[in-house]
C-alpha cells in the first residue's frame, strides 16, 4: 500500500524513514519506526503496526538486523502479505517482500538503506527511489529521504486495478541522538501528498532552529509572531 525508504545516514548515524501512500494517514503506521542508536524498521505491504515496537525492542536486546527480520517473520502468520525493511545502528540492511504483496512489489538493499514498495508502476520506481537517495550524500538525511520519495513519485509511483493512484498521504521521520525525533512531518490527506510534504518541509526548515533555541533560552527568545515577521521581511527583501 506504499513505497518508501528507510536509511541510516553514514555520516551521522541518524536513522530515518520516508514513505508515501494511496492510503490515508500512512504515518499512523510509523510510530516507533526508529530509535536513536538502536535501529529503524517498517512493516508495510499490508501493515502489521505492532512490528515497529517489537523490532525496536529486539534491536535494543542486541539482535542484528537479520535476526530482527527473522523474528518478525516468525511471529506473523500473515508474513506473506507484509513487506519489511530493517536497518540496524551499524547500517546493516535486510528486507522481506512477501509473495502475496500486491504487484509490482519488491525491494532494493544497499549500504545502510532499504527502498521498498508494492503496487508499483514497475521496478523502475525502486531504482528511482535509490537514485534519489544517493543523489547527494552530503545533505541531511531528511533531504535525501524526501528526494527519494519525489523520485519514486516521478517514476510512476503506485498503480491500482485501474491505473495510477495518487499519493494521498506521506511521512518523513528522522531520529538523531535524542529520545524524540529530530524531524517528523506528515501529510495525512492531500491530492498531492508528496508535493505537500515538500511544502511543509521547506517551511519547517525555516523554523527548526528557532524552535530548538527558544526552548534552551526562553528568557531571550522572541515571540514566534515576531520571528515569522522577520522571515517574511527577509523574503520580501530577496523577492521585491
Amino acid at each position, binding site marked *: *500500500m506504499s513505497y518508501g525508504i528507510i536509511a541510516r545516514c553514514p555520516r551521522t548515524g541518524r536513522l530515518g524513514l520516508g514513505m508515501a501512500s*494511496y*492510503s*490515508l*494517514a500512512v*504515518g*499512523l*503506521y510509523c*510510530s*516507533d519506526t526508529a530509535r536513536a542508536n538502536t535501529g529503524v524498521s517498517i512493516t508495510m*505491504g*499490508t*501493515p*502489521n*503496526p*505492532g512490528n*515497529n*515496537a*517489537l523490532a525496536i525492542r529486539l534491536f535494543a536486546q542486541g539482535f542484528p538486523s537479520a535476526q530482527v527480520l527473522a523474528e518478525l517473520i516468525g511471529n506473523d502468520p*500473515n508474513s506473506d*502479505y507484509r513487506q519489511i525493511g530493517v536497518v540496524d545502528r551499524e547500517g546493516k540492511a535486510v528486507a522481506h517482500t512477501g509473495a*502475496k504483496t*500486491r504487484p509490482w512489489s519488491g525491494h532494493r538493499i544497499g549500504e545502510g538503506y532499504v527502498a521498498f514498495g508494492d503496487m508499483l508502476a514497475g521496478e523502475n520506481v525502486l531504482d528511482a527511489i535509490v537514485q534519489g537517495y544517493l543523489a547527494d550524500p552530503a545533505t541531511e538525511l531528511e533531504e535525501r529521504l524526501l528526494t527519494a520519495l519525489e523520485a519514486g513519485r516521478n517514476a510512476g509511483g503506485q498503480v*491500482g*486495478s*485501474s491505473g495510477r*493512484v495518487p499519493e494521498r498521504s506521506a511521512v518523513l521521520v528522522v531520529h538523531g541522538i*535524542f*529520545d*524524540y*525525533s529530530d*524531524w*517528523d*512531518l*506528515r*501529510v*495525512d*490527506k492531500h491530492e498531492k501528498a508528496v508535493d505537500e510534504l515538500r*511544502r*511543509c518541509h521547506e*517551511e*519547517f526548515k525555516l*523554523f527548526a532552529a528557532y*524552535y530548538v533555541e*527558544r*526552548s*534552551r533560552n*526562553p*528568557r531571550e*527568545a522572541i*515571540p*514566534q*509572531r515576531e520571528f515569522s515577521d522577520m522571515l517574511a521581511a527577509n523574503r520580501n527583501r530577496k523577492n521585491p
Partner: protein
Amino acid sequence: MTYSIIARCHRTGRLGIGTTTTSLACGRRNESVRPNVGISKSQAMYVRAHDPRALNLLALGFTPSAVMRVVEEHDDNFDYRQTGIIDREGNAIAHTGANCGKWAGHKVGPYYAAFGNWLSGPAVVDGLVDGFLAETDLPLEDRLLLALEGGRKAGGQKTEKNPKAERSAWLRVVDRQDYPEIDLRIDMHTNTVAELRLLLQEFRLYQAYYRERCRNPQEAITEEAFVAQLAASTREPCSSPH
C-alpha cells in the same frame, strides 16, 4: 501559543491528546504519549526531553504530582513552561509558569487537564473543558476534538492581525497496544481545527477497513475497491439499511 487537552476515557481507559498551536507540525511530539503509562505534554517554551523523562518517571511508579516536582526541581526556566501530566488512572495535574504569556492558564478535572498559553482569554480553556464534557458517551477522540473546537470557538489563538493563528493540530488516542488507534495530524494549514474535523470524518470511513486489512490480509479487498464502494454508498445514501 498553544492549547491542549489530555485525558483518559472514564469508560475505556484509553488515553488521548488533542492540541493545536501556532507552531508547525505539533504532532511530531509523539514522545508525549505512552500507552498504559500516561501523557506528559509540555508547551509554551517547552523542552522536548522533558516529556519522555516525565513518562519514564510515571512508568517507575511516581505519581503525576511527584513527577511535576522533579521536573520543576531540575529546570531553571520552569516559569516559561506549561505542562500537563496524566497517569493511566486518570490522575491529572497541570502547571502554568508565570512567563507563559497573556492569557495563559489551565483547568484540571477528573480524567483531564486543559491548558493553553498566549490565548485570547480564559474563555478558551473554559471552551476546551465544556467541549470535552459535552458528550461523555462519545469515543475519546470525538471528545478531544469537541474540546479543541470549543477552545477555537472561544477565540483560540486569535490576535488582532490574525483571527486564526493556529497552524497545526494533532489528535492521538492510544489503547493497550504500542501503536496508536487514532493519530491524525494537520502539520501546516490556515484553518487547522476545521481541517482536523474533516480529516477525522474521512478517516472514520476507512478506520474499520484499515484495521481489518492489517489483521486479516487474506480476506481484504483492495483499497481501490473499498474507495469505489464508499463512493457508491455516498451517491445512494438511502440504499443502505444502516
